[in-house]
């Protein structure tokens, strides 16, 4: 195991004291260290939001792109580079709101990445509007009479899409979160973890305590490869909320479906125009 310190996960942040992003960062850096990874072997793609500032707050390669667009650039990297460990990380608003179309279609692509969603059920950085996962009862300066739409249950959505790895975790349960992160990193294909991450500044409903009182570990004998069981578990979101790997299905990844790509690292590709003379023959 490498020294966790090489990930410099103690950098100063712009997060609020007590924010659930801190334990998330800790769990992440420890997981990476325990997996014997070095900073240059990991790349993190994020969007915009409080969660999305993560690549500034620990040492890995980072692409801090646009709000809602954390996923698409990661595909470019997966194509270029079969080796790199890729983590896509962003907030619930960024991932499920502005970025909804990308998660919808990347579940289908089964691209080999890990997608960590900081689910604080709120827009943090823009000061507390409803996110797609906000409950109907929450009132905000925009949702003055509560939320007009039903909250998204990201796990049920992803299971309904038969994503290849769907998990839920909670920053208040570090060992669980680390186990989930490591399992996701080891999973071949798209692996999503929806992570409960309390926002102490704007979400006064879904607090640490709220989650603590509700989450429970999946039963020992729970079989995440059983679709029907997964659908049932995914639907539990009330007084009790299961955390763990809800659904898992091994299947061909995006790269594996491109027959000629194999292990080729396009980033090593070297082209000489004079060697491509045969491209001209089509036009003669």
């Amino acid at each position, binding site marked *: 195991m490498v020294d966790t310190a090489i990930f410099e996960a103690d950098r100063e942040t712009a997060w609020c004291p007590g924010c659930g992003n801190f334990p998330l960062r800790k769990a992440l850096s420890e997981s990476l260290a325990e997996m014997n990874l070095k900073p240059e072997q990991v*790349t993190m793609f994020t969007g915009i939001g409080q969660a999305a500032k993560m*690549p500034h707050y620990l040492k890995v390669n980072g*692409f*801090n792109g646009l709000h809602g667009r954390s996923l698409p650039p990661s595909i470019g990297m997966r194509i270029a*580079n079969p080796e790199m460990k890729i983590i896509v990380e962003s907030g619930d608003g960024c991932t499920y709101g502005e970025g909804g179309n990308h998660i919808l279609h990347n579940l289908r692509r089964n691209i080999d990445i890990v997608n960590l969603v900081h689910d604080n059920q709120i827009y943090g950085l823009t000061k507390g509007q409803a996110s797609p996962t906000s409950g109907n009862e929450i009132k905000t300066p925009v949702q003055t009479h509560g939320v007009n739409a039903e909250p998204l249950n990201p796990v049920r959505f992803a299971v309904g899409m038969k994503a290849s790895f769907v998990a839920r975790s909670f920053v208040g349960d570090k060992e669980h979160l680390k186990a989930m992160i490591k399992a996701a990193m080891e999973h071949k294909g798209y692996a999503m973890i929806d992570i409960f991450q309390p926002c102490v500044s704007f979400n006064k409903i879904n607090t640490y305590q709220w989650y603590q009182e509700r989450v429970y570990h999946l039963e020992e004998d729970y079989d995440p490869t059983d679709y029907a069981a997964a659908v049932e578990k995914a639907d539990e979101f009330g007084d009790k909320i299961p955390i763990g790997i809800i659904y898992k299905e091994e299947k061909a990844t995006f790269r594996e479906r491109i027959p000629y790509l194999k292990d080729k690292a396009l980033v090593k590709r070297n082209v000489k125009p004079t060697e491509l003379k045969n491209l001209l023959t089509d036009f003669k």
Partner: protein
Amino acid sequence: MDLNILIGGEAGQGLKTVESLLTTILFRQGFYVYSTKDYMSRIRGGHNFMEVRISDKPVHGPTNEIDVLVALNDESVDLHLQDLNENGVIISASAHEDRRMERLPAKEIAKEVNPRAVNTVFIGGVIKVLGLALDEAETIIKEHFSDDKEVVEDNIELLKKGYELLDKAFLLERPGRDKEMMLIDGNSAVGLGAALAGVSYYAAYPMSPSTGILTYLARKQEELGIVVEQAEDEIAAINMALGGSYSGIRSMTGTSGGGLALMAEGIGLAGIAELPVVITDVQRPGPATGLPTRTGQGDLLFAINIAQDEFPLMVLAPRDQEDAVYQSFRALNIADKYQMPVIILSDQFLGDGSKTINEINLDKLEIDRHLITEQELAENGKYKRYKMTEDGISPRSYPGQFADQVVLIDSDEHDELGHIVEDAEARTAMVDKRNRKLIKLIKEDLQEPEYKGPEAIDYLLVSWGSTCGPLSEARDLLAEKAQVGMLAFNDIWPLPVSELKKRAAGAKVIVVEANTSSQFAKLIKSETDLSLFAEIVKYDGRPFVGKELYQKIKDEVM
């Protein structure tokens, strides 16, 4: 010799195959060819037509006069008869009252042999009318249907039947050809240039008239070992390409206006994050959906000013299909050198039109990735993605390239390491650093427009992008009446101004472009102190035609 063949019919009648086979046959026989497509946004029905103009000298655009009118349906005769030359010929399955009529009952003939190959009868007929031999046609039919021997035989039989049934009307001679030539459409040309430049990733969403670039590269992807991916939308497409670029591979996308609009924010990201990327916008008339399969040059100012706030970018517009190959290649080099987005402004006229061009000279093409080496890294110490430099270009590395080094890019304003900053000084310094790249580009890489004409002129015609061909034909005609020069711009932004200032001195400047508000003229005015004499525009979705332009300039402006 300058001859124009028009093939008209409904969508779904196989017009494209007729056009493509005929164009190839005539090209192989040594003619210079220019073919254009006029089609509707539908899959079947309606009225479409293709024109194939041939000559023994280079042709740069379409003409309106028709010498051979191949009518796959009756409507085509009604619609195009007015443009048929006095000594022209109509080839049609049904009879029309016109002395120029040659009936070719293709359906009946094909019924006995192979009804699906009905159009080949017409090809045979055209070749005969032109007074050419069949040999080349047979070869091409063999190549085209190579998969199925029986189909080849049927087609050759029908080709011959069509040939036999008609008489020679023109007595063309095959021009000699002293050098290798190519026949290519503008979309393939952009794709070819990119392939030669080592593009490894093309992410795009289908959109007429840009889909040809996507399908060209897709067809070649396995052979080249590259990846062509259909994105879920254009926002994904540009961001996927940026991810590839960040990871160290040459990446590209392409679209038309509406898709370009959706990419705007991502292009700004390329600007501030300093990620090389090439975006081809094959223009069509708009806004919104507009005329999906027609041509225009209405995206110029949108492209130059794309996305909120400011950042260095380059916009270039190939003059023709040959230029498109080189410009596409060059765009990828410039994107890498300056770590910035480069937009190629093509249009439906250029993208769908095919032209005989000189063989691409591969020896002239040099790829430079501008990535730092181990040694350069060592000299620099800790890797700084946005290191302050005199010319504004920071050392570029990709993730995983070097042990112990990470690469961080950021869409916020940032410091040298890529971390978010908010203070006034850091912001100003980083903006200035980025802007310095354009100064270098102007010095080292900007291409002045091509000039054609005498040294002393009364009129200076100005084109940008694909209007070059038709305007150049107009200039040649006008040159018989007055001293007329012409500048054909392919670099649009930053705007090269020295040749323009030089040639405009003492001349009346006439800017010709395909939009309503004379956008290029506006650009010239905002970047120079020149006064313009006239602005000629067209925005009906159809390409400029040399003779038409000549007439218009002569009558309305001169």
